[in-house]
């Protein structure tokens, strides 16, 4: 059993210097492409010409703003809670099946990311509406008499958002699960713990760091949501990002939008401080790192227990929930009517025809991939370096830096978009996919930072010291020892970064032009008036391509082994 070396470095000053060198690139990057443009814009919350507090007073006086802020935080908290609850059975499932099945299940978990938000919500509405697939099934089976209102209310918002955001919890939770030493479970069993006690007292605390990383991402992400609540919720679920976007886009009331953003930001930070005080996140993050476990988590040799089977069943149910809207995308993409129904009344290849006919779709895919490539490489390099550097800095600096690096998740994207436009337009770099990719890196870097930081907590520093002692230079040590150890975190961060870039509409609306439109932007066009089923065909194509690539990968890896 190895003892962990304390993370704090006391006597030697050089490591602190190198830690700052690692942190500096991200600080500079965010300073230029995030803080400067965003603060410039937020500054106008105090008036465009002279100093005034009227916008803040208005937010205080007009009740709707308090109400919508409350909506936002309540919905975000509920979504976070739901994501955590439903992710446990899925993570358990992933951790206990064979590697081959696991690969397939991972695809199922990540598939929702590969469809645009518009397609997902449309599919959900068709499944859940009063005369939708689910209600038809339930009434047909005689389980209910009256259709249940699943959408256009709170449940619609919760379903839609949980569906999209869940993978952010599943991935880190899975990583935490497989790091649990199985003998711990056996020890608990031997001491008389049943499945419930094992879950609550052993598995939950040991997976807490993973869950907290995931829940943080989900909560901060939820705060900025507006497409899903607008389409799947009712007016009672108006969220703050909708008001901010409206004030920017429709009403041109930028001062009010900026003031709302500032208030949102302050509330979020306040919630975090309270959360940290109450739950002691820091202790949880550092107190329960896995240490070189001898037996990876798996089901015991007795097979699954009753509780195990129950969890298994829940996991399968959640997976069905995850892919249900994806599955109906295929038949829907073959429907002939532009008014979507399921099952379609007649079939045609009309939308696929559109997809290949019009150059904008394929160009959109190409532009999206270019931007994503830039976004992934920048955010992964900068985020990983910063995460490593941050871990080496003193207890006092760390929380500040972490807050700074996570902030891009909290600021509404529309604020960043407008701020960046003002900064970049005079430089003549608008409309370049690389510019968009850099902007996406700003959005993506917090994800990389969080996931890599979580995986670094479990990294035994003795390994690093051992490698250096054996004569490895730091870069060699990093490549051969540290990187493999934190790879799951880096990979998860890269996936999240890709998705952030691949799904973004708002930045694309401001930073691309007709030649550099990305796929989500092409999909978004015409949305005010109609849903062009071509976007469903596009989603179906993307899903099929993804599946094909993964199938090839599976076949090749099987041949190799």
């Amino acid at each position, binding site marked *: 059993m190895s003892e962990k070396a304390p993370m704090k470095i006391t006597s030697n000053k050089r490591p602190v210097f190198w830690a700052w060198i690692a942190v500096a690139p991200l600080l500079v990057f965010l300073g230029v492409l995030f803080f400067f443009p965003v603060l*410039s814009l937020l500054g106008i919350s105090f008036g465009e010409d002279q100093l005034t507090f009227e916008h803040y007073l208005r937010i205080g006086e007009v009740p709707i*703003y308090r109400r919508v802020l409350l909506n936002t935080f309540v919905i975000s908290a509920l979504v976070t809670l739901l994501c955590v609850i439903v992710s446990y059975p899925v993570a358990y499932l992933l951790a206990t099946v064979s590697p081959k099945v696991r690969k397939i299940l991972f695809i199922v978990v990540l598939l929702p990311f590969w469809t645009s938000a518009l397609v997902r919500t449309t599919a959900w509405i068709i499944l859940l509406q009063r005369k939708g697939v689910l209600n038809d099934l339930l009434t047909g089976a005689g389980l209910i008499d009256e259709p249940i209102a699943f959408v256009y209310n709170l449940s619609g918002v919760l379903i839609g958002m949980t569906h999209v955001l869940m993978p952010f919890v599943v991935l880190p939770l899975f990583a935490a699960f497989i790091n649990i030493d199985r003998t711990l479970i056996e020890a608990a069993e031997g001491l008389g713990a049943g499945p419930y006690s094992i879950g609550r007292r052993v598995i939950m605390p040991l997976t807490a760091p993973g869950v907290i990383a995931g829940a943080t991402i989900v909560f901060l992400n939820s705060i900025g949501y507006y497409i899903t609540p607008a389409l799947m919720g009712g007016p009672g679920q108006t969220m703050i990002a909708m008001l901010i976007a*409206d004030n920017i886009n429709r*009403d041109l009331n930028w001062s009010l939008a900026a003031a709302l953003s500032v208030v949102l930001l302050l509330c979020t930070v306040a919630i975090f401080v309270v959360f940290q005080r109450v739950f002691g996140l820091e202790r949880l993050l550092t107190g329960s790192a896995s240490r070189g476990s001898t037996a990876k988590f798996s089901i015991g040799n007795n097979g699954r227990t009753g509780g195990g089977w129950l969890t298994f069943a829940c996991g399968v149910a959640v997976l069905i929930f995850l892919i249900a809207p994806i599955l109906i995308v295929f038949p829907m993409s073959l429907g002939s009517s532009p008014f979507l129904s399921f099952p379609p009344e007649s079939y045609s290849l009309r939308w696929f025809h559109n997809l290949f006919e019009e150059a904008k779709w394929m160009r959109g895919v190409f532009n999206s991939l270019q931007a994503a490539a830039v976004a992934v490489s920048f955010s992964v390099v900068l985020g990983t370096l910063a995460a490593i550097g941050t871990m080496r800095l003193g207890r006092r600096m760390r929380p500040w830096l972490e807050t700074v690096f996570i902030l891009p998740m909290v600021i509404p994207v529309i604020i960043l978009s407008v701020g960046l436009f003002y900064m970049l337009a*005079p430089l003549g770099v608008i409309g370049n996919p690389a510019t968009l990719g850099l902007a996406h890196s700003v959005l993506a870097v917090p994800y990389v930072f969080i996931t890599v930081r979580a995986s670094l907590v479990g990294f035994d520093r003795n390994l690093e010291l051992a490698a250096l002692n054996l004569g490895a230079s730091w870069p060699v040590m990093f490549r051969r020892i540290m990187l493999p150890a934190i790879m799951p975190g880096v990979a998860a961060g890269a996936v999240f970064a890709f998705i952030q870039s691949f799904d973004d509409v708002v930045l694309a609306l401001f930073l691309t032009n*007709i030649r550099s439109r990305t796929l989500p932007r092409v999909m978004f066009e015409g*949305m005010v*008036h109609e849903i062009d089923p071509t976007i469903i065909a596009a989603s179906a194509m993307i899903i099929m391509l993804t599946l094909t690539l993964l199938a090839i990968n599976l076949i090749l890896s099987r041949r190799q082994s």
Partner: protein
Amino acid sequence: MKTIKTMLLAGAFAAGALAAQAEEMVFASWGGSYQEAISKAWLQPFSEETGIDIIEDTEPEVARIKAMVETNSLEWDVVTGGGSTLMRGVAYDLFEPITEEMVDQSHVIEGAKNEYGVPSEIFSTVIGYSKEAFPDGGPQTFADFWDVEKFPGKRALPDRAATVLEAALLADGVAPTDIYKVLDTEEGFQRALDKVSSLREHVAVWWSSGAQPVQALGSGEVVMALGWNGRFQAGMDEGLDIEMSWAESIAQVGYFMIPRGAPNREQAIKFLNYMVQPEAQSRFSEYVAYGPVTDKAWEFIDDERKARLPSTPERLENAIFMDIAWWADNATSASEKYTQMLQK
């Protein structure tokens, strides 16, 4: 915004300084079948006639127009938008005034004219209803829409105040000419809100995108909806079992604007002149069910197509034009109160 501008523009160079070799013009609208119709009815024939190349862009958000104008990086020569976009832009001085010398609009319907934009089409907010739910005739007036005894079933309404408040007051018996006078008073505004509020429990869908009311009607989620005539028409054309009522409607106007500092201003003016001509105006409705902004266009339109369009003299008789000036003045507070009312 000045602070940002001075901060960010330090050392900036003027964009768009490169003069085009061939004549060209950049047009930006909202994509989808709407932009396709514009392209077929006006952009392509204009381009053929004049030899001016037209580049089409999309999503001319007024926020982006503002940002482009203020950073001197304007890429667009003609942008399109509804009344609220127009008025908002005017408030920030984003659009060029269109004088009689630039574009002759003498033949345009009075209610549609505006100093800063050339009207391109008229569309209406009307009642759409399911024929399946009401085989013996559906709701005709806004009063019918509010009458849940006579016409039971769930409804769909916009999640924003514009047109809903007008419809509510019409349903409450206010004379069409008095609508904005009533809305201007605090009691009158509250009256409209209360009227909407009274219908709340019968509203299943508060829509945010124009596609939603049609989708909801088609799927049976609701039996009637307040929505745009062009969308209902598209649904009917695709065989959805729905119908529109023209007994009352709220007419809105689409506008084409020239942002300040447009790089190809001359070509833009040429195009606007072309688009507003009666013959060109008549062509638009071949592709979408939106009506011409001039009565002179009707002579080029047959009766069958006429039946689909909102701006015939008879229909405008029963319609009120949305007062975009009123909405420009009251948008923020109206939307605050409307959204608040919906929360309860």
